[in-house]
């Protein structure tokens, strides 16, 4: 079974997203900010990461850049999942190594579609 790390400072979002990816046959891990997520990845690299942008301690884009520099950090499929819906943020995310981008609010169909685009399902 593949593992998906959900990185978001909102417990509600983590719970909702967690249920959606569980339905897609993923085990779920959670982190409340980029620093926690990076620590998690150093211990066990997930197959997929659903990543918020604005978070305390370390934001999503800094986490992504740090992740891609880690050994094995090129492996996880990273799907941004954020309220930052403008072209500039999307372009920055993709240039920094994101594989896909979800603009909040999201639902199960959108998550499935984006996981399909990246070959996760």
């Amino acid at each position, binding site marked *: 079974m593949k593992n998906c790390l959900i990185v978001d400072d909102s417990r509600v979002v983590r719970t909702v997203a967690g249920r959606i990816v569980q339905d897609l046959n993923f085990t779920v891990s959670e982190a409340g900010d980029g620093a926690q997520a990076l620590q998690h990845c150093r211990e066990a690299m997930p197959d997929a990461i659903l990543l918020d942008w604005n978070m305390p301690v370390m934001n999503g884009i800094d986490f992504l850049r740090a992740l891609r520099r880690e050994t094995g950090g090129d492996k996880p499929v990273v799907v941004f999942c954020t309220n930052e*819906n403008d*072209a500039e943020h*999307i372009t920055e995310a993709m240039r920094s190594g994101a594989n*896909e*981008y*979800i603009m909040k609010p*999201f639902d199960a169909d*959108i998550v499935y*579609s984006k996981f399909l685009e990246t070959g996760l399902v």
Partner: protein
Amino acid sequence: MQDTTFNELADLALRRTGQAFERSKAYLMEARLATICRRESFAGLDDLAHCLKQRPNPRFEQEVAAALTGKATHFFKERDTLEQVIAHALPARLKQSTNGRLRVWCAGVATGQEAWSLAIRLSELADQPLGKAHVEIVATDVSLPALQIAQSGTYGHYAVQTGLSITRLMTHFDRQDTGDWIIKPDMRETVSFKRQNLMENANMLGQFDVILCRNVLSKMAPVMAKQAVETLAGQLLPGGFIFLGQEEDIHPIQPTLKPSRDMRGAWVPVERDESAEAAA
């Protein structure tokens, strides 16, 4: 909704668009006519049916019938079929073309995602012969409100995130201040939209190399589906192909269409296939 109302609306849908409704799908009727009921201040479908009976108005009847057709679609739906068209059907037709021009009819496109998906996919083939060909896409639907959305090329938050990768979204759409996304001007020229009822003669559209009519016929009453197939087949160029929905149960119209022997996933009119066989 009273049984008489259901029967009258089902009859209207059948007469006007060929669509068959079972009593168990009454909830779909209510959902699809909710906008018209709100606009016209009807208390419900019984009111609407009463109005249709008391004040006959062909234009309003047509609007109601068109609203009853299904419009659930998304970008890059049934990708295997799309890829079959791109990788095999259109290249095969291009080889036979003398002027490098091809015509595709997307019939029953609802809000247009299928036609735009095809246009987007074609735009990604710049280095291939098909990318250099002139492919005209004509997209039709019976519903004017759906066509208006299709033609505007403007889609909301959920529509652009279902079936469309972020790379394709950023390449082919611009974000508007409203938060909606609109197809870019260079793509807009590649698709033309027209109203067409498959129950009516389609000669005005001209002839096509490939016709896509996905998940439309299976929702029609068998006798109407046969009529729609005649409409489609009448616009198909010799040697062209018709593609239907992947999971579509077309058993009732199989005497009219049969799987192509030359093109996986494609259908051809029975008469033509038989004459080709006889010629061989």
